């Protein structure tokens, strides 16, 4: 039997966390840990760490950590409920903002916002690049891969997949991690 009460509390907890995730999914990681490991004891500390690791290394958004938590708590239904609860509230908010943005396509305010926000995004993109370099690049070869990829794509128009493939091969050979 499916434990409906358990699914409801999964939905409530992740639904709330969804709207608290200012600054992206990683911002609410401590809260997810507190609710699922400390308060409800759905996962052990070890389970949480390996779920986190797998969600970080697998393709796709790392927010799918909640999918693994839901699965551990209540099987396939838990996985679906936790994922939807984490996605729907914040996505609905974005949907409304985007509809508003689209509706005001020709308003002068929209172009003022576009002008103001584009350089902010550039700063954020560069911050993201720096963060990847700081966390992923543990060896000199890793730094060379990052700089080489940047140069090859920017200057020589190389397809990023080639760079990422080379990076992956070097990774498997053990050149990237310590």
């Amino acid at each position, binding site marked *: 039997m499916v434990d409906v009460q358990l699914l409801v509390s999964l939905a409530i907890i992740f639904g709330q966390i969804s709207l608290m995730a200012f600054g992206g999914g990683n911002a609410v990681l401590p809260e997810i840990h507190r609710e699922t490991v400390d308060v409800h004891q759905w996962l052990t500390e070890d389970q949480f760490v390996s779920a986190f690791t797998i969600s970080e290394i*697998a393709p796709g958004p790392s927010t799918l950590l909640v999918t693994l938590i839901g699965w551990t708590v209540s099987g396939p239904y838990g996985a679906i409920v936790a994922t939807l609860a984490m*996605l729907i509230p914040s996505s609905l908010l974005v949907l409304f903002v985007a509809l508003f943005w689209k509706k005001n396509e020709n308003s002068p305010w929209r172009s003022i*916002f576009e002008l*103001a926000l*584009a350089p902010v995004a550039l700063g954020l993109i560069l*911050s993201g690049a720096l963060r990847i370099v700081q966390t*992923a690049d543990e060896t000199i070869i890793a730094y060379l891969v990052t700089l080489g990829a940047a140069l090859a794509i920017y200057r020589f128009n190389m397809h990023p997949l080639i760079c990422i493939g080379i990076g992956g091969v070097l990774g498997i050979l053990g050149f990237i991690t310590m």
Partner: protein
Amino acid sequence: MVFNKDKKPVPPTVSLLELYVTFMKIALLSAGGGLSAWVERIVVEDKKWCSQDEFLSMLSISQILPGPNVINSSVFLGTILRGPAGAFACLTGLLSIPFFLLLALWVGVSSMQGITLIQNLIAGMAAAAGGMLLSLGLTIAGKNYHNIPYIIVAAAVFILIGVMRLPMLQVLAVIIPLTLIHSYYTRKKPEDVHG
């Protein structure tokens, strides 16, 4: 590209299936990270669904709103292109493969050896993905290097959030009003004012 009377490009009509497939592709391509660089490359450069500035402002808004950044920008883009159905297509496209892949890994990869192998692979891909983001940053900066205020804002965001690791929301709460005021006073006055 087609332009309407306001000289703005008319967004092309994209089928929901194409949105779904495109975001499925983006999810797989961005395995090592650098997702916004892949979205930019495919959506702006290959498919020309929106301009680079439009994309950048969507990216900023998506990061300010709560929720995972990647998911927010997919929902935003889907909504702009095809309304709520488009948002749904992008979101499901982005998540369908990772959802099952992740569960398969969780249930299947119990050996630490397997995890280490994947970890090494992804670390190598991430190093290259960092370079891809860097290249996108250079490209955008190169297009706007003559625009001094633009470069100052981008540099301020990068130093405060990237280098000094100050909390993003607080930093943007200060910077965005300032850039808004600046772009309000420097905007090009339209010659004919609409109704």
